[in-house]
């Protein structure tokens, strides 16, 4: 990657008077401007560039990214699978990309039909009765779920429930969501096989239990062996089961969350249904639930009019309300719809079978050097430990950074928190055996280097656009916007 050169901040490329857009001239009389309301600086200091300069700048800095289109991305819990190009064309069709969300529903029947069908498909794949496509991301889906649980309990006059159970292995969004909803978070331990510890669970269930938030397969990459019993216990205490769908890629056509005891779940369309991650969003966190919880779902939702077959938006009668403006990240819905229609039943099941096969292949080829967190058949991701026998002073971070030198994006590291030096590897179904064999060979080489030439790891990466960063300086002397003086200091090494 030595071809990478640095690119100055946009502000340093600016010169007064340039413009990169070709705009129409004014064709109406000018109206007087309200002088007391004008901004005083007339936007002085704002960058000014030509179109060529803008395109070069953003193309050059793009080359300082790795991405799915260039490298393997075995990023556990994030499901970085290939993003089919058809989806990009689909979302850009003018009837989708240039339609106004508030235009009359009679003018939007194609978009509404697509949303209605996607609701049906997601419900079928997960075993739920109702789906809302509103939430903008997984974390918002979680928020929706916990608010729905709250509304459900309150609707039954069940007002004493204040505690949400969250396993110690859970994603950080789970406890953050429960807290944001005004509830107390109660942590539940994992047992030696990586499942929810049933004794600990029982000791923490009570009439105060709102419900439990559980990822299944869980964040150790394992299918909860006692899932039916966990659900039974939570339900017996009057609680509800929330399913974090981050790991849904493992069980398409393998198991339906609605059939193993979950009451509600979110789908990360940007993981399982391969809407692109976009360098950090947009995501889409559609949610599904049982018939009992359906009246509380966030809306609007699409339904089909029984008399004339047209599609229309509606708010469920006891809805928790809307979580964002309009009706979901529609562009992401088009992509997810296209994905499901490309694959069908058999194709979706093969996705999960292959994803799980690939993860187990990597696990069995590496766990002699990188011990597995739990020695069991895993689902779509293998959680290993960066504790290489005989290596001194090597941390998982060093292994991750060394992978960059070989043109492989690091796995998720130090998560789940209960696994020391965790390396969470999710190859997904779109990685070929040849690529996995290369990844395995690289990981084995890194394990040898960790023992023989540990400094190679400590100094990694050396084959990337930049070396390891001074994160301490970033946090202690934060520079959060362009400033010529502060950039000069940075460059002088102050």
């Amino acid at each position, binding site marked *: 990657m030595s071809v990478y050169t640095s690119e100055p901040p946009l502000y340093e490329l600016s010169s007064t008077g340039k413009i990169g857009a070709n*705009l129409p001239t004014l064709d109406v009389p000018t109206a007087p401007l309200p002088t007391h309301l*004008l901004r005083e600086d007339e936007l002085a200091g704002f960058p000014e560039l030509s179109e060529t300069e803008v395109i070069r700048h953003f193309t050059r800095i793009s080359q300082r990214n790795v991405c799915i289109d260039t490298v393997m991305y075995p990023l556990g819990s994030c499901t970085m699978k290939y993003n089919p190009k058809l989806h990009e064309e689909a979302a850009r069709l003018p009837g989708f990309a*240039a339609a106004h969300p508030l235009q009359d529903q009679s003018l939007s029947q194609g978009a509404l039909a697509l949303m209605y069908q996607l609701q049906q498909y997601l419900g079928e794949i997960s075993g739920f009765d109702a789906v809302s496509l509103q939430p903008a991301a997984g974390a918002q889906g979680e928020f929706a779920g916990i608010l729905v649980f709250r509304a459900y309990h309150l609707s039954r006059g069940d007002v004493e429930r204040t505690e949400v159970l969250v396993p110690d292995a859970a994603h950080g969004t789970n406890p953050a969501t429960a807290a944001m909803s005004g509830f107390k978070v109660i942590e539940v331990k994992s047992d030696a096989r990586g499942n929810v510890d049933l004794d600990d669970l029982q000791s923490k269930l009570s009439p105060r239990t709102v419900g439990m938030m559980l990822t299944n397969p869980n964040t150790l990459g394992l299918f909860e062996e006692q899932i039916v019993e966990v659900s039974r216990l939570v339900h017996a205490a009057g609680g509800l089961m929330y399913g974090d769908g981050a790991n849904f890629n493992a069980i398409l056509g393998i198991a339906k969350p609605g059939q193993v005891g979950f009451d509600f779940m979110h789908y990360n369309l940007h993981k399982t249904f391969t809407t692109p991650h976009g360098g950090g969003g947009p995501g889409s966190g559609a949610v599904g639930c049982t018939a009992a919880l359906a009246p509380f779902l966030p809306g609007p939702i699409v339904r089909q009019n029984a008399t004339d077959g047209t599609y229309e938006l509606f708010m469920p009668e006891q809805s928790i309300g809307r979580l964002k403006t309009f009706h979901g990240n529609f562009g992401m819905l088009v992509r997810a719809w296209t994905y499901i229609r490309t694959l069908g039943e058999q194709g979706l099941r093969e996705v999960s079978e292959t994803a799980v096969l690939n993860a187990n292949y990597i696990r069995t080829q590496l766990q002699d050097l990188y011990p597995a967190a739990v020695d069991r058949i895993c689902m779509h991701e293998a959680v290993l430990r960066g504790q290489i026998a005989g290596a001194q002073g090597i941390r998982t971070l060093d292994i991750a950074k060394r992978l960059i030198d070989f043109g492989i994006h690091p796995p998720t590291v130090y998560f789940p928190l209960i696994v020391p030096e965790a390396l969470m590897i999710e190859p997904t179904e779109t990685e070929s055996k040849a690529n996995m064999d290369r990844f395995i060979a690289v990981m084995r080489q890194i394990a040898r280097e960790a023992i023989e030439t540990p400094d190679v790891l400590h100094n990694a990466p050396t084959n990337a656009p930049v070396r390891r960063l001074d994160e301490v*300086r970033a946090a202690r002397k934060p520079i959060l916007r362009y400033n010529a003086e502060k950039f000069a200091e940075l460059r002088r090494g102050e």
Partner: protein
Amino acid sequence: MLAAIGIASVADLFVDVPADLRFPPLDLPPAMSELELQRELRRLSGQNANATTHSIFLGAGVYNHFVPAAVDQILRRGEYYTAYTPYQPEVSQGTLQAVFEYQSMIADLTGMDVVNASHYDGGTALAEAAIMALNVTRKRNRLVVARGLHPQYRAVLRTYMQSLNLEIVGDDDPTMSLDDLVNLVDEHTAALFVQSPDFLGKLHDLRGIADKVHAKGALLVVHFDPIGLALFQTPGAVGADIATGEGQPLGIGLNYGGPYLGIFAARQKDVHKIAGRIVGATRDMNGELAYTLTLRAREQDIRRERATSNICTNQGLMALAATVYMSLMGRQGLRRVAELCYHRAHYAATQIAQLPGYTVDLTQPFFKEFVVQCPRPVAAINATLRTHGIIGGYDLAQDEPQLGPAMLLAVTEMNSKADIDQLVAVLREG
């Protein structure tokens, strides 16, 4: 691979799933080839009116603005759209630098100190502002909200706040003035929320209210239109503590409701209370300039239940679109777009005000959107407009019934004089 794993068949990988629930059938339509799907997608897309088939005068929070071709060319680069969140800065400098430039330009545009890497949309940015205001002011339980805030933002705010035992006041009475709202701010109030231009398009002079709000220990939150800021008073200049905006006008298409862009800006003093990602500049081991996610101790993956919010993603690619758009427009282009909107909207308002039965209030300043009081129900007028290939304004019957039949009409640089004249002609014919 099966032999290497030590199993006989793929089915053996799933023995942990209860046997009676394993491999359920999925009742889905049969798989389709790419060319069949292209055809089906075109069919569905073809059923929707859109900005390429109709003349659009509908806004209400989402606007048909011009998007230069160069924006989408950058967005289509796999390096951006197929990249993950930039947690590994050594191989994510492209995304990180673009976000840093986004933060810088939005800070300039809003006159605020710091900007985060974005929220989901304008409505959620506003809800996050409420959470932050509650965290900054501590132990306060009242929010004062102007009715001029988009009704959907107010709805999102109430959804977010429903479990927190708060009082949300100020937006139930359409006659309430800005002064009346300021008077509702008391020592239990965490923040006052105002929008300019407001939902009905009106520009407000917000100077002077920040001091009154601060005197009660509360924060001022100002929601803005990013295009409008090229010409008009900024949240920073009027002393706002938090500024939020819907970033869709900055180079993002209508997209039938999303994805859009939630802009969030604040003051330096509150930087540790901001929710969501923030990118900072630093150096690498060789002393090279580099960018990284910073001040991470606020976030959910580290702080868990003590995080500032549960937010995990931002709208990375949409922030990139806004950054490329602002770069192309630059200082002059943004001002030209705002001027085109302003003058064409005023031309349209003046023309419509002369039509018999139609009333437009031309005495109050507005930017690109205005209320038209109509001689008959808006639904009927819009039905007529549709037959002429025009998508008319937003029907205010649900949100502001006291106005009688009234539509909210938006005019942007996309609506030429000829488009406006055609609209006026159809309205005149009735």
